[in-house]
C-alpha cells in the first residue's frame, strides 16, 4: 500500500490547537482515516485532550469523551459495554492516551481492560514525556534524556511496554511510528478487523519536548527506527512479526545506525555532547539498545 492509496476522507479537520510539527495530529489524521466515522474515542488527560477542541474550534467529528487521567481504558470498557447493550457492535471504541496515561498512571486500567477481553483498540501515542504539563519524565522517557524533572538526564531506562502488553496474550498488538503512515494505517485496519482487545503504540517525536526543530518530526521518527531505538512490529495471537526496517535489522540484513545520529539532533540529549562528549552514557544507551535487539533475536527470530 502506498501513501496515495489512503482514503481521502478527512475526519481530523482544521481547528487543532497543536504546536507546529505535532506528531499527535499526524497520527490522529491517519487514525481517523483508518477507523472511519463509526468510532468513539476516549481520551484521558494528555495533549490531545487540550489541542483537539479548544473553543470555538474542534478538530474532529466523532463522539469523544475526555476522561480522568488514570481512566482511559476503564472508560472505554464502559463505552464498549454501553454500545453493546444498545446492540451496536460495529462501532469501534478507541482509547487514545499518551505515554504518561499508558505507562504510568493508566497501566492499571489498561491491564484490567486487556485481561477482561474488552473489545476495543487502545492507542498510545508515545512522545516519551509528560508534554501537556510541561515536559516531565515518564516511564517511557529514555535513559539520559533531559526533562524538567531529570535535569541532568534520566538515570533509568524506559519500560518495554510492548512486551508488558504481550504478556497479556491479547489477539493483536503492534508498535509503529508516525514516520511510517502506511504501516500505521495497516495496523489500525488490522486491529479494527479483530474482535477483542488490541493495543497499538505510536512513536511520536515531540518538537518542544525533545527540543528539535518543528519540521524534523518525521525525520526524528525515521531515525528512531533506523537506529533501533524503536522497533516496528506486530503481534498476532502471540506470534511476533517485525516490519519494515526493523525486520531488516532483526534479520541482520542492515545495521542499526549509531544512536548518536538520532540523539545529537535532540536538545534533550545536548548535555551528552556539550561541553564534552559523554561517551560513557552514550555507550550505555547504545549497549542497552543492542541488548534489546539481542533479546528480540533470541526470542522472536
Amino acid at each position: 500500500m502506498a501513501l496515495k492509496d489512503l482514503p481521502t476522507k478527512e475526519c481530523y479537520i482544521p481547528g487543532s490547537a497543536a504546536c507546529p510539527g505535532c506528531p499527535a495530529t499526524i497520527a490522529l489524521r491517519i487514525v481517523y482515516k483508518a477507523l472511519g466515522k463509526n468510532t468513539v474515542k476516549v481520551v484521558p488527560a494528555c495533549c490531545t485532550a487540550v489541542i483537539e477542541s479548544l473553543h470555538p474550534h474542534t478538530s474532529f467529528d466523532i463522539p469523544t469523551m475526555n476522561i480522568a487521567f488514570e481512566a482511559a481504558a476503564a472508560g472505554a470498557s464502559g463505552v464498549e459495554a454501553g454500545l453493546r447493550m444498545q446492540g451496536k457492535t460495529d462501532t469501534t471504541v478507541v482509547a487514545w492516551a499518551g505515554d504518561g496515561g499508558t505507562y504510568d498512571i493508566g497501566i492499571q486500567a489498561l491491564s484490567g481492560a486487556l485481561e477482561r477481553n474488552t473489545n476495543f483498540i487502545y492507542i498510545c501515542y508515545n512522545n516519551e514525556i509528560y508534554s501537556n504539563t510541561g515536559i516531565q519524565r515518564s516511564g517511557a522517557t529514555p535513559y539520559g534524556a533531559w526533562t524538567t524533572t531529570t535535569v541532568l538526564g534520566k538515570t533509568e531506562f524506559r519500560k518495554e511496554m510492548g512486551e508488558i502488553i504481550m504478556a497479556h496474550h491479547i489477539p493483536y498488538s503492534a508498535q509503529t511510528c508516525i514516520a511510517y503512515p502506511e504501516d500505521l494505517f495497516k495496523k489500525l485496519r488490522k486491529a479494527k478487523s479483530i474482535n477483542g482487545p488490541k493495543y497499538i503504540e505510536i512513536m511520536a517525536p515531540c518538537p518542544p519536548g525533545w527540543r528539535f526543530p518543528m519540521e524534523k518530526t518525521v525525520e526524528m521518527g525515521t531515525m528512531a527506527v533506523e537506529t533501533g531505538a524503536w522497533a516496528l512490529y506486530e503481534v498476532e495471537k502471540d506470534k511476533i512479526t517485525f516490519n519494515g526496517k526493523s525486520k531488516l535489522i532483526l534479520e541482520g540484513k542492515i545495521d542499526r545506525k549509531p544512536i548518536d545520529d538520532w540523539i545529537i539532533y535532540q536538545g534533550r540529549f545536548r548535555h551528552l555532547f556539550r561541553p564534552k562528549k559523554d561517551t560513557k552514557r552514550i555507550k550505555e544507551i547504545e549497549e542497552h539498545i543492542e541488548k534489546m535487539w539481542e533479546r528480540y533475536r533470541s526470542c522472536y527470530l
Partner: protein
Amino acid sequence: MKYKRDPKRIRQVLGKKVQFILGDMACVYGGLLAGCSFFGGYPITPASEVAEGMARRLPRVGGTYIQMEDEIGSIAAVIGAAWGGAKSMTATSGPGFSLMMENYGFAAMTETPCVIVNVQRTGPSTGQPTLGAQGDMMQARWGTHGDFEAIAFAPSTVQECMDFTIEAFNLSEKYRNPALVMTDGEVGHLRERIIIPEEKDLKLIDRVEATIDKKKFIPFTNSQTRKNCKVPDFPTFGTGYRTYVTGLTHNEKGFPATDKQPDHERLVKRITEKIIDDADKLVSVEKFNLDDAEIAFVTYGASARPTESAMEMGRKNGIKVGMLRLKIVWPVPEKEVHKLAKQVDKIIVPEMNLGQMVHPIREAANGNCEVICAPKIGGEIHYPDEVYKYLEAK
C-alpha cells in the same frame, strides 16, 4: 547517604536572601528550609513547578526526589518516607488531590507527619488547568472517609507560600498529622518579592522520636515521654522499635482491633482531640479595621487580595467595614469568628468557589449576625468592585 539538614548548604541552593519568584517555587523554598528530605512528585498543572523545583534542588541538599507513577503513588511514597525517617512532602492540584484522598486518610489514621501542597485549580474534574480556584477547601476537611481533623494553611502571597510550607511542616511534625498548604493557581503562579528568613529566625519543629525502653514502648497512645500529650512518640522504622502501621482500626499497640468499638472510639477520639484540644493555639488570623467595624469580610488565600481593596473602597466611602483573614483555615478559628459575629451586623465571605468556608463560618457565627457568601468561579479572582457591591447590597 544520610540526610542531615545543613543550613549552609540549603542557603547555597536557595541563593540570595531577597528574590522575585513564583508562589510554587516559594513552596519549594519552604520545604527545603524546613528540612524536607523527600519529595514524591507527579506532574500536574499548576503545581508542576513545585515538583520541578524540588527535582532540581532537593538532591543538592542531600535529599531525594522521586517522580512517582501517579498521585496515589506520590502520597503513598511520602507516607512511606515519613516512616523511614524523612520529613516528606508532595504537591498537586485538584484531580491529583482527589486521587490522594484515600492515603490522606491513611496518613491521618496512622498519624504520619507529611505535607501536601495543593495548588488549587477549578473543578470538578479536570476543570480549568492553570486557573486558580478555592474549590477544594471542603475536600481538604472532609475529602477522605471517616472522622479526622485537618490542618490547612491558605497563603495569600508568595512570601506566605514559603512561610506556610515551613509552618505546615512544623504542625505536621508536632501533631503527627498530614498538613496542607491550600494555595491556588493564582498565588502559585504569581511572582512576588520574598525574603528568605535568617537561620536564627527559623523556628523548626521535629517529630518527637521514641526514646524510651523498647520493651515498654507503646506506639499508638498518649506520649510516654510528655505529660498530657495525645501525640505518641514516633518509632521510625529501623530504630529497633516494634512498629506495626495499619489503616485498620488498631489498638494502642498498633495491632488491628477491627471488631472492638471501644478501641475504635479511643483511637479516633485521640487522633482528633490531639488537634481539637489545641485549636485555640492554632488560630492564625490577620485583622484589618475590625475595631469599629459594622460589616466584616472573612476571607483567605487569593481572595483576601481583592477583598482588602474592596474594604479600603468601603472605608473611603464611609462604610465601617473590616476584614478578618484566615491564615490557617482548618481548624476554623471558631471563637474569633463568633466574637466577630457578635460585634458586626454582617459577615461577607468572598471565596473562589460557590460557597465552602462560608458554612463553618456561619456555624461559628451561630446566628449572631447575617453571614453571606460572595462567590466567584471560573478561574479568576474577584475584582474589588465585585466584592464591594456586597457592602452596598441591602
